[in-house]
């Protein structure tokens, strides 16, 4: 360490050398007090020695003397020595950085902060690129923060982050900035640091600090509605066990790195800088690890919050995964599981899988019956069903709520919403019951006026206009000045109109329009005014009103256009002379032609109807060819347009015109229509108008009863590529093929589901998909599809078949009572007379049999073969079913006689089932004891009591 010294007096040299050696040894051993004392002695006792006063001696000893002084807390002396060194040896390069760094430390220890900062800066300036410069910068920054020089400190840290390469120091600078920004409540700045830094989490030593800062910030962001950023924050937080492992590993790595560095780097090469840095770092890490080990496991709380952030950031699937995982974790407390389970329901609702959400909600009730959140879960689920238009399910859930929690705070709202959903279902009686119950139980509730309004409207739905009007008039003063005032005013006007009290309706609607010109029903009110004027016979006034309705009024504009047309026809019909009539008919054509030609309408419906009226007008004017041409033109324009849904109705309208033009009977008209369609098909095929071709084939299909097989669908499958078939066509083909050719049907079904998920024809998809599920034995899934069908399309041509299938899925899944209820509803439908009734009775028999009630099953089947002989295949099935039922009941004689009667029917005897019946009859005959059939007292099948419809 030291160079040689000139010889002096023997005694003095040896003494000086001894003291010097003692000082060296003490310094190396870390005995700074002894070292300091030795160096002091040298500077005092031996100060006159020529060696001591030599420059080379001083330049060597002074830094060490100062260092020893600093480390044995003789800070002022250390400062004195370091300052002297800097003054006397400004040109020195090898020791000055060491001196400056320790001088800065010394200043810092006597709280001469500004001097300390300046000295660190001088140190850094010597060589800004060395790693120790970053250490010094961090020290300087620490002091800046202590003295309130915050902006300067942040800027400095940002520079370190920007200029340092990836590593411990860079991350430390950023972490320090983050911690300080949090301490100083500089939220935006802290957020910027947190979310826009490259944290190198796989290497950073103080991961726990970042993790907890991120956790805290995540909670704040969640609370303030910044859900996306909250997710980012939670992503910076490893779970508890992972964090402990990582910290342990980092601590080990840091200690190892420190040890290797300490041995390799000399004192003047920055060794003691790193010593200080790592010593402090390791101490912090050990404290953090200790704290972590003593802390509770925060992971469940983290994931609950994380899931919540996902949910609110519109990422419900991620939320589902987290919440389900927590809800199923038996290691968590019941409280935590229940909280997770509740949120799992919310996630399922947001994902939109209603049936799953319902089951999860029910599961919540079963697992945590005492949880205060059970009613909330049901309420949420009910409202979710309602939002999705699943009104029957919403009612079911609300009913469950009211049965179990009718004292809950949400009970009033639930009761109200159930009534509301009954409204959506067109069930005015049930709706009114709920609203009346609400009014009686909660007269002061904020929804009580709404409830009164809806109660009044329930009478309107039943066409009991007088009672509706009375209720509305009673309500009007109660809602004065409130939100419902204009609504009630409008409803009064419309009720008067419905009662045909046009004068009262007129004054009411004019009062409404004058008083509430900005109300949401203004367009409706103007249309109503037009209708009222029509009712009063003021046709010109009415027409003027209708022609002023804006195209932006949607379906109201369309309605108004057709009302105006109606007026023109009425006036033309009442015209005094031919000229006037002709003029009016021209106006009529022009009116509807303008409508058809408009391209600026957001909604243009009833196209075929408009065409019909144009055609009708031509017929009235005697222009038959023109009448037909209108439809030719329309079919030319729309026939092959895959997005147009009007083609079947255009053909229907054409048929009606032809009916007027031709003076022939129905059979002849149908034959001519079929012939015309076949011609159109040929032309379409030649012209590659294959969408039109498919539509024409499907129209022919619709002219044939469903039970009569045709080849039309197979023609389409062969001739028309699937991508040329519109939504309705896809649906009809899928529905038509699914029972016998499911694999082919699935292609059409999948295309309908994928390409037209929002089509009005998606009910066909529900039907076809349900058939596929049933064929696979997945009756729960099938039922779900059929339930959607029934909810969305109660008037669909397949509705009755769907009800039968729906009942079957209920039977298959053991819901016998519900199946029976559905089938009995079907029996009450007049539109289901004939074959559907017969099938419903058969299904009732099967259902009772499945429920283990054979004796109840028997009369249903008997009714079918006694009453519905006109359907031999259904009657045959009924006979067969009945015979088997009797056999299982042990009554072999009646079983035999049933089959005997069955086979005596010549129409049934030709069916394939007859062979099975024949075999069974023979077997029964062999099994019967001798003479059993001859007994006079035997009841025949025909004498058994029948169920009444």
């Amino acid at each position: 360490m030291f160079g040689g010294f000139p010889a002096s007096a023997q005694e003095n040299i040896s003494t000086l050398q001894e003291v010097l050696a003692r000082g060296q040894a003490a310094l190396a051993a870390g005995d700074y007090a002894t070292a300091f004392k030795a160096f002091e002695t040298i500077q005092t006792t031996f100060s006159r020695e020529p060696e001591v006063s030599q420059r080379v001696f001083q330049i060597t000893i002074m830094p060490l003397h100062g260092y020893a002084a600093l480390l044995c807390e003789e800070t002022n002396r250390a400062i004195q020595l370091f300052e002297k060194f800097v003054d006397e040896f400004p040109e020195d390069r090898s020791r000055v950085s060491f001196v400056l760094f320790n001088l800065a430390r010394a200043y810092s220890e006597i709280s001469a902060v500004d001097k300390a900062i300046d000295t660190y800066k001088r140190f850094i300036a010597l060589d800004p690129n060395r790693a120790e410069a970053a250490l010094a910068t961090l020290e300087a920054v620490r002091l800046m923060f202590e003295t309130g020089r915050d902006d300067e400190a942040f800027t400095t840290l940002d520079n370190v982050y920007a200029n340092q390469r990836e590593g411990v120091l860079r991350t430390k600078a950023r972490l320090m900035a983050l911690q300080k920004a949090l301490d100083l409540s500089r939220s935006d700045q802290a957020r910027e640091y947190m979310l826009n830094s490259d944290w190198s989490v796989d290497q950073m030593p103080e991961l726990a600090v970042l993790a907890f800062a991120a956790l805290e910030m995540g909670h704040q962001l969640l609370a303030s509605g910044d859900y996306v950023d909250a997710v980012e924050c939670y992503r910076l937080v490893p779970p508890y066990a992972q964090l402990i492992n990582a910290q342990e590993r980092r601590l080990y790595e840091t200690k190892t790195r420190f040890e290797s560095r300490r041995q390799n780097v000399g004192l003047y090469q920055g060794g003691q800088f790193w010593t200080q840095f790592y010593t402090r770092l390791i101490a912090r890490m050990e404290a953090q690890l200790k704290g972590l080990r003593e802390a509770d496991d925060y992971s469940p709380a983290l994931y609950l919050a994380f899931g919540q952030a996902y949910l609110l950031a519109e990422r419900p699937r991620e939320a589902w995964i987290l919440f389900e995982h927590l809800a199923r974790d038996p290691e968590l407390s019941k409280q935590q599981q229940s909280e997770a389970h509740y949120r799992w329901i919310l996630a399922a609702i947001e994902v939109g899988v209603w049936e799953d959400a319902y089951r999860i909600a029910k599961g919540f009730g079963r697992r945590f019956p005492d949880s205060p959140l059970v009613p909330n879960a049901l309420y949420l689920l009910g409202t979710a069903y309602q939002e999705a238009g699943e009104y029957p399910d919403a009612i079911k859930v609300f009913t469950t709520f009211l049965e179990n929690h009718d004292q809950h705070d949400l009970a009033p709202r639930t009761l109200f919403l159930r009534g509301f959903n009954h409204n959506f279902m067109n069930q005015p009686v049930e709706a009114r019951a709920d609203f009346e119950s609400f009014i009686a139980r909660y007269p002061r509730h904020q929804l009580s006026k709404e409830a009164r309004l809806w109660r009044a409207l329930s009478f309107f739905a039943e066409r009991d206009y007088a009672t509706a009007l009375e209720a509305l008039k009673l309500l009007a003063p109660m809602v004065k000045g409130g939100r419902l005032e204009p609504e009630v005013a409008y409803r009064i006007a419309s009720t008067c109109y419905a009662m045909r009290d046009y004068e009262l309706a007129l004054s009411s609607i004019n009062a409404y329009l004058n008083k509430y010109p900005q109300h949401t029903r203004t367009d409706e009110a103007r249309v109503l005014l037009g209708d009222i004027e029509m009712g009063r016979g003021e046709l010109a006034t009415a027409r003027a009103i209708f022609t002023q309705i804006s195209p932006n009024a949607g379906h109201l504009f369309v309605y108004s256009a057709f009302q105006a047309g109606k007026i023109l026809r009425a006036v033309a019909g009442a015209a005094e002379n031919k000229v006037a009539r002709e003029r009016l008919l021209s106006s009529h054509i022009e009116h509807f032609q303008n409508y058809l030609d408009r391209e600026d309408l957001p909604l243009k419906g009833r196209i075929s109807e408009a065409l019909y009226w144009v055609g009708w007008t031509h017929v009235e004017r005697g222009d038959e060819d023109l009448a037909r041409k209108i439809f030719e033109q329309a079919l030319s324009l729309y026939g092959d347009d895959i997005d147009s849904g009007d083609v079947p109705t255009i053909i229907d309208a054409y048929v009606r015109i032809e009916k007027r033009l031709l003076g022939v009977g129905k059979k002849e008209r149908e034959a001519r229509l079929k012939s015309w369609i076949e011609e159109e098909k040929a032309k379409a095929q030649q012209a590659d108008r294959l969408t039109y071709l498919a539509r024409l084939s499907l129209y022919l299909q619709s002219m044939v009863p469903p039970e009569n097989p045709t080849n039309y669908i197979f023609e389409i499958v062969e001739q028309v590529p699937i991508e040329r078939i519109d939504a309705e066509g896809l649906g009809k083909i899928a529905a038509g093929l699914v029972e016998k050719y499911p694999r082919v049907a699935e292609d059409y079904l999948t295309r309908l589901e994928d390409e037209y998920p929002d089509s009005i024809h998606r009910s066909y998809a529900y039907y076809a998909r349900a058939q596929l599920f049933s064929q696979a034995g997945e009756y729960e899934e099938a039922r779900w599809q059929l339930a959607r069908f029934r909810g969305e399309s109660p008037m669909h041509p397949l509705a009755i078949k769907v009800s039968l299938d729906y009942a079957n899925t209920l039977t298959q899944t053991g819901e016998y009572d519900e199946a029976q209820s559905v089938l009995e509803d079907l029996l009450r439908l007049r539109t289901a007379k004939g074959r559907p009734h017969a099938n419903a009775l058969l299904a009732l028999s099967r259902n009772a049999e499945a429920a283990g009630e054979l004796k109840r099953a028997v009369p249903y089947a008997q009714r079918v073969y006694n009453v519905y002989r006109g359907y031999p295949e259904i009657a045959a099935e009924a006979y067969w079913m009945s015979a088997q039922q009797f056999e299982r009941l042990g009554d072999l004689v009646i079983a035999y006689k049933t089959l005997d009667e069955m086979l005596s029917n010549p129409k049934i005897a030709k069916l394939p089932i007859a062979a099975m019946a024949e075999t069974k009859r023979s077997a029964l005959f062999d099994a019967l004891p001798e003479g059993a059939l001859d007994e006079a007292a035997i009841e025949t099948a025909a004498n058994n009591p029948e169920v009444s419809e």
Partner: protein
Amino acid sequence: MLTALLLAATQVSAQLSPTLSEIRATLQEPVTIVLEGGNQQTGQITSWDESLLRIEVSLGGGTAELTFPAEDIRSIRFPGAEYKRTLYEWKNDPERAEDALALYRAYYQQQGAYLSLLSQRELSLFIDYADFALAQNEPLKAVATIDIISPYIEDEAVLKQLKENLLLGFFQGGMREEAEVEARKWIKEAEPAGFSALGWRLLAEINFEQEEYENAFWTAMHPIAFSNQMTMLHLDVCYALAILAAEELRLKEEPLQLAAEMRDRGLAWPDYVVMLNGKAPEYLTAENTEAETTAKTTIIEQKPLQSPSPIDPIESLPTRIYN
């Protein structure tokens, strides 16, 4: 002149490097048994049944057979250890990969029957073999090796890694059923935010291959949902599968959201996975991929419902995490 010198150097080098057959010959030389007392015996092993080892030693002008119980044997030294350096060189030379595999195999043939006598350090040779076989697209070799050495490995971390490689081996070897079973077992034991998403990745790949897109989606999403900024192996593959499955399910916002997140997290499209090669969607690299939120999301197809169990209600509830 220079060319000649270089050629000469190559020839000399070639002469110095042993051939496989030379190494094999060395590996068949006698072994040395080191007993607990420190004594050693060198000879050819004649039999070993996990409890008794018999070796034939040279004695005088003839031979003798010595028998040692397993508990008396401290260690066993096999000839040819010096060629491990050669193995290392061949491993790192793409041109010699086949030879490296052959040499590993030779060592395995030499020592495979005596694994219970090897130290953990000595067993690491075969762990390396399995890793290398997997990397060289020889998954069945890897599976076989891992299966055999696993019972002898004591280090939990090493065992964990072996299980991962076993799973990968099943999958890459086309043993889908085994891979699926093992993946499900792996998932049951895995930490959802752990260092690896392998089980979910492979199960999702299997689901995707079978066109079970909904299962693939939810399975791939599991580690994504739980992941944090710590490295998670195979997360990139999970993102890619989730994106493609979401597209198949016609979800409108999710593919864009996941792609943006994948990009922001610095994960590249895993073209190294055969099934995903070249299938990165365009929007993954395009900026400004914020999805419009006005459109309604298509409702995804539902998993078949399970019937409720009266014993444990939670088991019967609809799941997206146990596919």
